[in-house]
């Protein structure tokens, strides 16, 4: 059956509604403005930053002196930067695992035919549409020593478990992590839901007829078929976790001390507070390489596990 709005001709064609024709080829010139803007605001700054990482530029002087790998050598011996690297990995790995586990459980629950599922989906996704800074400021009040969380714990008889949530270096990183998970678990849920809706009911029915229980049906039928959704979720969450900035900066500023410092907050402070743009862009380049390498390896492994539905 011919599609009402698109005619397959074997060549890349797009129906432009205002052209009055179907199957007209898109002039490639149309992409030039977009490419120009992309080059201007993404490619050029990225290449410039990569170049600055090999200089001693202070962000002010017209002169930039080439210093070779000096900034990268500094990074290797910079205790604060290395501690932030460890925090970044801890945060990214935890967010990736917990956020997706919660997202999957929520998706499985809301994939069932329950009455309020659309309402619940909306509620659970709602935090994701809030700006991260707003979420961070909101939770900052909840976590404060006289905030809602500690008051609630006291009210329900759990006063002994009250904590100095953002002021204790032993737990501050995990508190920030929990906030990130709270905000974005809904995103993982939506992506998993999209995957779950592509799982044919007949396969699950067939598995049930063969005597499979709920877990076996999930593990042997659903899980392989939602592998593409899993891939998307894991990639997005690991990248988001590795470059996390807003929530950390707004909730703790990297403190107490350096307890919640991430590579992104170090990059910001090194450039805009200390005025050491060369070193800052070197750390940014390291972060870029880490994100790219982890994402590529992750993508390769996950893609190999995907199956056709």
């Amino acid at each position: 059956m011919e599609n009402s709005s698109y005619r397959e001709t074997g060549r890349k064609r797009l129906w432009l509604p205002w052209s009055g024709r179907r199957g007209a080829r898109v002039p490639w010139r149309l992409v030039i403005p977009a490419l120009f803007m992309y080059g201007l605001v993404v490619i050029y700054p990225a290449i410039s930053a990569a170049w600055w990482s090999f200089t001693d530029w202070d962000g002010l002087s017209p002169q930039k002196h080439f210093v070779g790998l000096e900034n990268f050598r500094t990074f290797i011996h910079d205790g604060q930067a290395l501690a932030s690297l460890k925090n970044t990995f801890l945060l990214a790995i935890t967010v990736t695992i917990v956020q997706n586990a919660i997202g999957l459980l929520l998706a499985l629950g809301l994939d069932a035919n329950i009455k309020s599922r659309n309402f619940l989906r909306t509620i659970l996704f709602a935090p994701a549409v809030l700006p991260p800074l707003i979420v961070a400021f909101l939770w900052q009040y909840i976590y404060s020593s006289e905030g809602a969380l500690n008051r609630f714990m006291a009210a329900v008889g759990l006063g002994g478990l009250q904590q100095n949530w953002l002021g204790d270096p032993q737990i501050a990183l995990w508190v920030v992590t929990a906030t990130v998970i709270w905000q974005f678990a809904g995103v993982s849920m939506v992506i998993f839901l999209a995957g779950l809706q592509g799982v044919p009911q007949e396969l699950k029915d067939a598995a049930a007829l063969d005597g499979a229980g709920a877990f076996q049906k999930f593990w042997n039928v659903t899980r392989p078929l939602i592998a593409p959704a899993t891939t998307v979720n894991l990639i997005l969450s690991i990248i988001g976790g590795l470059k996390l900035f807003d929530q950390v900066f707004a909730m703790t500023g990297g403190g107490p001390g350096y307890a919640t410092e991430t590579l992104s907050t170090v990059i910001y402070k090194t450039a805009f507070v200390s005025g050491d743009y060369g070193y800052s862009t070197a750390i940014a380049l390291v972060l870029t390489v880490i994100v790219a390498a982890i994402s590529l390896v992750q993508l390769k492994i996950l893609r190999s596990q995907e199956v056709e539905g």
Partner: protein
Amino acid sequence: MTEEDRRVDAGGRSRGISRLEFLRMAGVGAGLAATPGFLASCEAIYGGGGGSSEGGAIELFSETSLQAPLQELISRYRENHPDFKVKSSYAETDALMNTTRTQIASNNAPDLMQVWPGTGGNAMAVGAVGPTGALADLSDQPWVDRIPQDIKSLFEYKGKTLYYSPGRAVIGAIYYKPIFEDLGLETPKTWDELLSASEKIKKSGKYPFAIGNKDVVFTQFMNYALVPSTVYAENPNFDEDMARGKATFEHSGWKDAFEKYVELEKRGYFNPDSLGTSSQEATEMFFSGRAAMLVTPVVGLGDLEEQYDAVGKTDVFVVPGVNDPEKVWASAGLGSGLGVYSESEKVDEAKAFIEFLGEQENANTFAEMLGFLPITPNREMKVDPFLKTFLPYVEQGKSIYFPDQKWPNAEVQQTHFAVIQQVFAGEITIDEALRQMDKTYQQG
């Protein structure tokens, strides 16, 4: 058919891009292109309508806090210079610094820009911007001769005066008068008196000090209030000795200040969980009468009293860091001000306006409206009542600028913030904290 050349709706049908979507995308693009316009939080033109550049207006970019006095002084200047036009933009500190630095780097800085004193406070300090040659020399202006010798170097880079400051900001202990009166307490004049007063306040069920050390900027105020007495009263040339390598933080009165800061916490004189308390929460704690003292810059205290419905309930004293009242010094740092962009086409007009700001009457207005002490105490000045306590200290030379204003780089201050939090978190000792500061200082 690929994903690139079609879009698929929820029903699995392919569809093209609609005219409306195209227009929306164009709108987003236009919005992105206009983004730099958002950098300044507000913008105004004085002395003429229309755009600034075409009207030959001077561009001025500063913190929002300077807006009111600058508006007043620009209006006053225009009374005798009706052709003087200013396009002024104001922003919060971080946005201001980042934007101005970028503008300097791209040779497009505003004619008048906000600059901070000394070398170490931040990335827009005279010592940071001076080496680029972006600031015009103001050394020959009349007001320069009135700058007291003890703070003159904070205006300079390589002997040239590069910015104008409206005055000195002070850090002191704001105290809640009803608590002091109920307990029959006098304002303490020595360290032991401060401890004694704090003990009585603690026993009354109030917090002696409201501390919001979750915000790094807040962490420094207690040390900055103590070191004038523990360091500079003993050795006013401490910074010169540091620069020559003859002194260190670790083996100086800084250790005494740090120990006193920690002692206050160990005696239970801070609100609980001070590391998890924000400066905003601490301020609210103080103005609601739950804490008796708040060590902070004393700026706009009258406005804060009104904001928190506590008019007449607060006053200020100099934090006595030692037991000899004669050796109690006050913390009075130089405020940020304006510099002239050396590459500006209107450098002469901009310098003329700075010269106008430097006239004593205008300098007094600027300081008064900001809640600063004038650079040079004089008979005509109207001093904020809350600052009167500090005036004798400044006049007798028993005050010192904020320590970071002479540190060699902005990184020392960042280290200072972090190590205070680490010390209170029990992660490092005071000696380790000071060694870290020394190490960062010595990196130059």
